[in-house]
C-alpha cells in the first residue's frame, strides 16, 4: 500500500507540473488556435531567472521561503515579459497568415530561445538550490512524500483554483472566453482582442514560470534544454485532455503523470513513454478531440 501511495504521489507531482505548463498551451490554443511550441522555453527561462535571482538574494543574506517567493515573483514577471514580447514579434504579424506560418514561427522561436540561453548562460547543467524548505512535520513520512512534493501539489492546486476563478468571474476572464468563442463578434461588442490575446500569453507564461521554479528546486538542476521535454509532455497532456479546454489540460496532465508513474512502478521505466503515448493514441481513437474537448464543426 505504501508503494502504491508513493507512486500515486510522484505521479501527482509530475502531473501538477505538466498541468501548469499545459494550461499555457491550451489557453493560447483556445484563443488563437496556435500551438505555441516556444512555451516550454518560457518554462526554462522562468527557471533560469529564478536561479539568478535566488543566487543574488542568497548573497544578500535573505533566507529560505522569502527567496522562494521573491525569486518566484521575479521569474513570473520576467517570463511574462518574454511571453508578451514573443506574441508581439513572432505571432501578431502572422495573425491573418495561413495557420502553418505561425506554427513555423513558433518552432523558430523555440530554437531561438534555446540557443539564446545556451549562448547567454551556459550549456552546462547548473545546480539549483533547494528553495523549498524541509518541513519538520513531514519527517516521519519523508520516504513517502517530501516537502517539495507537498508544496508542488498544493501550490499547483491553489494556482488552478485561482485561474478558474479568474476566467469564470472577472471581466477580463469573460472577455477571454468571448474572444475564444468568436473573435470578430467579441470585437463588435467592444472587446480589445489584441489586449486579451496579450493577456493570455502573460498568464500562460506566468504559470509556466511557476512550474519551472517548482520543479527545478525539486530536482535541483537546470540547463537550457529542460524546456523541450517538459514542453512536449505538457503538450501531450493538453491534447489528451482536449486542447482548448482548461479543465481538460489539468485532467490530461494528471492522467499522464499517473500513467508514467505507475508504468514505471509496476512494469518498467523502459516503457514509461510507451505507455504514456499508447494511452494518448487510444484516447484519441475514441475521442478525437481529447477527453474534455468539444469537436465543433468548422466555421466556414
Amino acid at each position, binding site marked *: 500500500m505504501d508503494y502504491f501511495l508513493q*507512486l500515486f504521489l510522484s505521479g501527482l507531482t509530475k502531473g501538477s507540473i*505538466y498541468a501548469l505548463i499545459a494550461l499555457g498551451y491550451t489557453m493560447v490554443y483556445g484563443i488563437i488556435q496556435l500551438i505555441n511550441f516556444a512555451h516550454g522555453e518560457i518554462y526554462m527561462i522562468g527557471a533560469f531567472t529564478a536561479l539568478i535571482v535566488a543566487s543574488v538574494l542568497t548573497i544578500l543574506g535573505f533566507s529560505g521561503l522569502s527567496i522562494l517567493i521573491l525569486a518566484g515573483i521575479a521569474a513570473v514577471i520576467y517570463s511574462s515579459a518574454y511571453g508578451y514580447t514573443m506574441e508581439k514579434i513572432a505571432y501578431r504579424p502572422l495573425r491573418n497568415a495561413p495557420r502553418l506560418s505561425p506554427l513555423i514561427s513558433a518552432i523558430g522561436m523555440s530554437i531561438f530561445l534555446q540557443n539564446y540561453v545556451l549562448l547567454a548562460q551556459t550549456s552546462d547543467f547548473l545546480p539549483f538550490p533547494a528553495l523549498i524548505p524541509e518541513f519538520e512535520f513531514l519527517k516521519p513520512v519523508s520516504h513517502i512524500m517530501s516537502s517539495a512534493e507537498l508544496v508542488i501539489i498544493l501550490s499547483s492546486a491553489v494556482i488552478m483554483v485561482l485561474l478558474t476563478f479568474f476566467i469564470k468571474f472577472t471581466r477580463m476572464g469573460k472577455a477571454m472566453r468571448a474572444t475564444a468563442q468568436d473573435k470578430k463578434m467579441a470585437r463588435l461588442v467592444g472587446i480589445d482582442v489584441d489586449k486579451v490575446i496579450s493577456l493570455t500569453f502573460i498568464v500562460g507564461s506566468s504559470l509556466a514560470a511557476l512550474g519551472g521554479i517548482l520543479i527545478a528546486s525539486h530536482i535541483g538542476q537546470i540547463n537550457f534544454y529542460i524546456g523541450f521535454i517538459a514542453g512536449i509532455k505538457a503538450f501531450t497532456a493538453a491534447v489528451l485532455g482536449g486542447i482548448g479546454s482548461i479543465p481538460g489540460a489539468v485532467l490530461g496532465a494528471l492522467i499522464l503523470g499517473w500513467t508514467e508513474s505507475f508504468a514505471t512502478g509496476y512494469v*518498467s521505466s523502459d516503457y514509461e513513454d510507451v505507455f504514456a503515448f499508447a494511452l494518448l493514441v487510444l484516447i484519441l481513437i475514441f475521442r478525437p478531440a481529447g477527453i474534455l474537448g468539444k469537436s465543433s464543426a468548422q466555421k466556414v
Partner: protein
Amino acid sequence: MKKFLTFLLVMVSAVFLMTACSQKAEEKAAEAPAENTEAAAPAASTEPIKIGVAGAHSGDLASYGLPTVNAVKLYVDEVNKNGGIDGRMVELYIEDDVCKPEVATNTASKLVSEKVVAVVGHICSGATKAALGIYKDAGILVISPSATNPELTQSGEYPNFLRTIAPDDAQARLEVDFAINTLNIKKFAVLHDKGDYGKGLAEFAKSFLEATGNGVEVVLYEGVTPGAVDYSAVVQKIGRSGAEAVIFGGYHPEASKIVTQMRKKQINIPFISDDGVKDDTFIKVAGEFAEGVYATGPVDTSSNPINIKAVEDHKAAYQADPGAFFINGYAATMALLNAIDKADSTDYDAVSKALRTEYVETPLGNISFDEKGDAIGVGFSMYQVQNGAYVELK
C-alpha cells in the same frame, strides 16, 4: 547560357583548387620525415621504417583523430633526431578515414600498397574493424589508441590488433568486482540511460553479475528516459526492490538527479557509476548528495614524468593543450617503436612477439600487451567523492 558558362568555370576552378590542396597535403606529410633523413642519418643506405597513421583527421570526429597524429609526429621526430632506430629513420604515412568504415577499407588498402610495417590507428571502433581484415591479410600490425569495442580483441579474430586503451567492458568489470569484493554486496539494481554508452555498460555489468553466482543477483534492471522531468517513480522502485547498491550506466545529468532523489527518499545505498559520471559537474550539481558516490575513471597518469614531457612537447610545438587520446597515441607509438628496436627487425612475427613480451615505459605507465592485444597496465581505477572531490581509491 552566360550564367551556365560562369557556373562551369567556377566548378572547374574549384576542382583544380581541390586537387591542388590535397596534393599539397600529401607532399607535406611525406616531406617532414624526408628532411630529417637527410639531416640526421649517416646510414642513408638503410631503408626507412614505414609507419602508417590512420584515423579521423577531418570531419565531425577530427578532434578524436588529430591529437594522435600530433603524438606520433612528436615522438617520431624525437626518435629521428636521435639517429632513428638502429640507424634507420622512421617515415610516416598519414591517411584519413573520416571515422567511416567504408572509407577505412580504402585507407587500409592504400597503406598496404605503401608497404608500411605497422599502423597506429584507427580511431573509431567501426572503422578499425572494417580495416583490420585487410591489414591481417597483408601481415601488418595495428595499434589503436582509442578503439574500445571489446570484440576487437576478445573475439580472437584479429591477432594483428593491439590497443593502448581499455576496452568498454573494463569499467563494468571493475564496478562489479569492486562492489562484490570490497563492498560485499549481493543484491544489485542496474540502471542505464538507454544510450549506447550507458546501456552497453549496464549490459556488461548485468552479465558479469549474473555469471558470478554465490547468491549475487540483479534485482532490478531498467532504463530511464534521459532528460525526464522527474525520476521519483524509479527511485521508489529501487527502494522497494531491496537492492543493496545501484550500478548506473550513463552520464552525470541523470546520475545526479537519481542520486539526489534517492538520498531525499532516505535510500542510502552505495551508488556506483562510470566515467560519464566521473566529472566535476556531477559534484557541482548533486552537491552534498554526491558524497560517497563511486565512479570508475581512467587511471590518473598526470604525474607520470613521460606524460608531463609529452604534454610539454605538444605545447611547445603547437601552442595548445593536447586533445583526446593524445597520451594513448603517444604510448602506442612508443610501444611499437620499442618493439621494433628490441626485435631488431620489422618482421611481423618478431615485432608481434616483442610487443607481448617487452615492457616499455610510456606516458600511461609501464605497459605490455596480453595475448589478445589489450594493454596490461592500462585501465580504470575506482574513485569516490570525498569532501567534494573525486579521490582515487587504491
